[in-house]
């Protein structure tokens, strides 16, 4: 699959179907933007792309997921496209056959409503957790300790089986958060540690990619604005102090894009290493994108502080991304511990390196 073509296709569709105007209107009311996009993504085969071929998908892997995730961030798209890109390969590969048969086809068609634990890396203590997704979700994916408590597993619970969801008002108006309460007597499926690692890796990559897209979009808008806005008798964009800030963001964007690309290369040989690179891509890209959104709001001046202007949407979206998957400071330390252990082993990174070439 040519990733450039995929990007152009997804970007074209989202520019049309998920314009800024629609996103803003949708955030003011309970619009049907999410439902429409989800179904369209199913019709266009987007959800199948990241499901392995032997399980009924197209097998383009997490690289394709990242390309679509990035475009979703650029368009400030509602959450369910990204959630289905995450849930479909997990259902296909890790769900018990009965569950898979009940839900996978509807997921691929863009019909399934899923919510996913925002703290997927580390299980939340207690029965209540914040999930990404609407309160009408049919399935919830969440992290839970393994029976012995020594590791973490991915859990899947059907909404009829003992989980109650209520909407939570999120600061990010472009996506929905809910609070899921798992009842004491709930019946849920343990999908195992491997499923958990896969979920963490893919959600980290999708979140990183979302931030990367949002970052690029707001920087482009800011460059355009500074190219027309005049003060002191000249275009604001002609001031070197402002130019350098955008140039720095541009350079760093390339770097974070490369990190996500590297982390999204399939590397089953060492799952801990693969997960560490994905989590690191998430912490680095989401932190940098939140900084870029701050810079852009500041560079817009007072207009950027208004509700009508889109700056705050990007700031809030990139802020939420920082908090998804797990806390960035904690995750970076975990990555540091893994990477400093694994990479010092001779030839630990050899195969990945050759794959890049």
């Amino acid at each position, binding site marked *: 699959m*040519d*990733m*450039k073509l995929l990007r152009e296709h997804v970007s074209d569709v989202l520019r049309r179907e998920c314009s800024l105007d629609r996103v803003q209107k949708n955030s003011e009311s309970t619009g049907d933007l999410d439902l429409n996009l989800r179904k369209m993504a199913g019709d266009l085969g987007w959800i199948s792309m990241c499901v392995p071929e032997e399980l009924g998908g197209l097998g383009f892997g997490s690289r394709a997921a990242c390309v679509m995730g990035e475009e979703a961030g650029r368009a400030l798209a509602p959450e369910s496209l990204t959630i289905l890109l995450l849930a479909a390969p997990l259902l296909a590969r890790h769900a018990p056959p009965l569950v898979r048969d009940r839900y996978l086809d509807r997921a691929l068609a863009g019909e399934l409503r899923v919510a996913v634990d925002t703290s997927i890396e580390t299980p939340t203590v207690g029965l209540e957790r914040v999930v990404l997704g609407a309160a009408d979700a049919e399935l919830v994916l969440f992290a839970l300790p393994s029976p012995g408590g020594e590791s973490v597993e991915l859990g899947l619970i059907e909404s009829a089986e003992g989980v109650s969801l209520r909407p939570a008002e999120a600061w990010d108006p472009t996506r929905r958060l809910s609070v899921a309460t798992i009842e004491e007597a709930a019946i849920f499926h343990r999908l195992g540690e491997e499923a958990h690692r896969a979920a963490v890796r893919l959600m980290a990559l999708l979140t990183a990619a979302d931030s990367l897209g949002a970052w690029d979009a707001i920087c482009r808008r800011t*460059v355009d604005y*500074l*190219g027309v806005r005049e003060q002191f008798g*000249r*275009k604001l*964009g*002609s001031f*070197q102090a402002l*130019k*350098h800030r*955008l*140039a*720095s963001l*541009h*350079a*760093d964007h*390339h*770097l*974070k*894009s*490369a*990190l996500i*690309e*590297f982390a999204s290369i399939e590397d089953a040989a060492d799952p801990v290493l693969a997960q*560490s*690179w994905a989590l*690191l*891509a998430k*912490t*680095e890209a989401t932190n940098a994108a939140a900084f870029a959104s701050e810079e852009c709001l500041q560079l817009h001046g007072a207009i950027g502080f208004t509700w009508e202007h889109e700056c705050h949407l990007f700031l809030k979206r990139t802020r939420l991304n920082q908090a998804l998957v797990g806390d960035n*400071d904690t995750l*970076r*330390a975990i*990555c*540091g*511990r893994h*990477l*400093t*252990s694994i*990479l*010092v082993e001779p030839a630990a990174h050899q195969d990945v*390196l050759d794959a*890049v*070439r």
Partner: protein
Amino acid sequence: MLSVSDPREEGLSFREGVRRWVASNAPRDWREQLVDASEEEVEEFLIGWMSTVSAGGFAVPTLPPDFGGAGLSFDEQIVIIEEMARADTPPLDMFMVTRTHAPLTILEWGTPEQKQKYLPGIASGDLWCQGFSEPNAGSDLAAIRTSARREGDLLLVNGQKIWSSFSRRARYCLLLARTNPDAPKREGISYFLLDMSLPGIDVRPTRQATCNSDFSEIFLNDVAVPLDAVIGPVDGGWVVAQSTLAAERGVLAFERVERLWHHFIRFIRRAKAEREWWLSDQQKLAEAASLLGSLQAERTLIRRFVSSEDASTDLTGLPPVIKITSTEIAQSVADFVIRVSGIRSQLYRNGFEQDCTSPMFDYIFTFGNTISAGTNEVMRNIIAERVLGMPR
């Protein structure tokens, strides 16, 4: 000595062949041996290594066989850099101009006679230097004042060049001088292949903040240069100079980042062996992760840029991005290594390139790269105006 083509005749992959060549030809334990060596001794050692590299065909791997090169592909050159970085062979920074700027410029702009005259020497390791910057022409390179005045069949060159690395020992210099003082700034400059043994050339070392004196000033006093030392059109040297810098295609940045990646990992390995305190500090582990991520990202970014077949992303505008990010990451790595090394980092120790064994040396050394080849501030202007299209 094994030459580069031999391993392939034995059915090994190119990478395996290079790896075998490196294993049997690269000196061992050379860093330990050079710790207390004088600058002269280090340079002698590096010249010796360069002649080994040249004999293997690796000095300028892509140079065509007609000119004494190995005629390897660009991708093969990348493999050579990777394998030498992995094996920690001695650095070849001293021969940077020899390995990239000189051959690429001469291949693109040289006459057949110039190619025959200079390229075989380059393939066998002649040391070249660069004479671009002047006291009043740094970021504003086109402001150079060194002049070359026609005098019969000769040009008389007068002026002063600065920041010219290893020119003390150089055999030739890539020199920019003004041949037409009346033309607009960029249109009166010519590009010379200057023989450094000519009378009237005085080279005086400049001590740098690292304590070393790689740099020299070059004083040119009525240096009589033959007309055939001009490369490219007379008065058209500005364009030649641009293509010299562009032709490098990120290979130097690639080599630096690749070597730094391995040096930083070796640094972590030593820290593990010594049970250094910072490996159990959450904040320091987080910082180390960020730096590893940045280095890995930079490796991926430059590979994307240098690998010829990848057309999935728009690559125009990447050179200034690579310049800024790669040099600033190197500075951050040096800063980190200083902080986790504590007071030991403040005890003087000589260094070679950025190998993480002398943290303060490394740190000061990194400014050489954030400043040279267009300061990072000039690069930010280029990104803003030419890539992002912001108003001048």
